[in-house]
């Protein structure tokens, strides 16, 4: 049975697109058929992070409006064949997305894929509410920082009220993905720690992605971090999160990159 997953956050720039790409690639390398849908109409970026920006012909709105068939718009990843992308339109208005159209597209994709992952735009407007509308599972991407936590709380409220499942009296499974986490700074009391965020938002933890230069390096190259450097700390954290999505019970740890003598000496004392 296909699962529809929304990656959302409220606040922009916390790592929704990065996480969509990394988790999608991790699930696909584990043998699942995965499709990523970019809902950020007018500001699409998932194609760029996936390295497929030059292969976009048709987009989500073309499909919604019947100008293109779904298979024509899907872009299959060159590295992982079981991973596909449905890009957003860069030129059209976001009002071109209709609830019925989105329902139709997601319904069709559910027949072909194991995971339908919706990359939500920032904010709480039409694009964001449509991205979460048909979700079974939600990943709330949060940075350990006050404005991100507040916006996540707002999004959790919307997931409990504005989704199809919520309206039908069911619940959307919600998971917290804490990104850009710095264990050393949290240890020093300079950054909210994991327990703080979990206590405030009170949803289960899917994973902790450490702050890492590998993330930017991967997006520079147009490759999800889980494909670009699978042994790096953030990639391992995403692989673990993907395993938890598939039902594996793994203990949540914060992976870290191996440090040199200097880093070890000073990193430990600071923590």
């Amino acid at each position: 049975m296909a699962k529809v997953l929304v990656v959302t956050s409220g606040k922009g720039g916390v790592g929704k697109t990065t996480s969509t790409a990394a988790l999608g690639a991790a699930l696909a390398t584990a043998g699942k058929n995965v499709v990523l849908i970019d809902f950020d109409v007018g500001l699409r970026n998932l194609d760029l992070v996936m390295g497929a920006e030059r292969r976009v012909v048709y987009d989500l709105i073309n499909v919604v409006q019947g100008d293109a068939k779904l298979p024509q718009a899907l872009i299959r990843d060159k590295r992982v064949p079981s991973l596909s992308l449905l890009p957003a339109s860069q030129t059209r208005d976001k009002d071109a997305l209709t609830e019925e159209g989105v329902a139709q597209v997601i319904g069709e994709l559910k027949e072909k894929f194991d995971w339908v992952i919706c990359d939500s735009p920032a904010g709480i407007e039409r694009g964001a509410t449509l991205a979460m509308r048909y979700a079974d599972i939600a990943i709330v991407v949060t940075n350990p920082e006050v404005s991100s936590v507040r916006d996540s709380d707002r999004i959790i409220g919307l997931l409990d009220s504005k989704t199809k499942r919520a309206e039908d009296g069911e619940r959307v499974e919600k998971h917290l993905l804490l990104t850009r986490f710095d264990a050393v700074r949290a240890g020093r009391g300079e950054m909210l720690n994991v327990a703080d965020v979990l206590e405030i938002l009170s949803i289960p933890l899917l994973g902790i992605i450490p702050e890492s230069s590998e993330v930017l390096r991967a997006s520079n190259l147009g490759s999800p971090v889980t494909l670009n450097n699978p042994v790096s700390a953030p990639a391992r954290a995403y692989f673990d999160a993907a395993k938890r999505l598939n039902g594996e019970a793994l203990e949540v740890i914060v992976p870290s990159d191996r440090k040199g003598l200097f880093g070890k000496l000073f990193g430990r004392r600071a923590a």
Partner: protein
Amino acid sequence: MKLINFFRRPSTAPVARERLQILLAHERAVSGKSDLIAILREEIMAVIAKHFPVDQEGIKVKMERGEVVSTLEVEVEIPTPMCPSFPLPAKPVKVAAVSPDETSQAKELGGAGDPSEFIYDEAPTEMAKTGTEA
């Protein structure tokens, strides 16, 4: 230990955590019933209208959220009857309510000539309770 603390900057995360907890407690209470003030206004008006002829525009309800105490301000304008011997002053009556975490005594503010005698004693306290429970 003191030497380490001297070099270390004071931790800010606990402040962030506390600020968030206070803020979100308020925001969660309001979301879902964002028209709480409108509902309050209507219900308060219904109560008062049982006893006085009040104008639709004659009631103002304002809520201010503070860290420890939130105040609910209800301002009711009651038209002065034509009769010149009527004792009611023309000034509006203000009722301020304090959150239950503080002393939940309602206070009467403003309204020279003690209008609270005229509005029977129970009513403002009742209103205050309705407001702060939500």
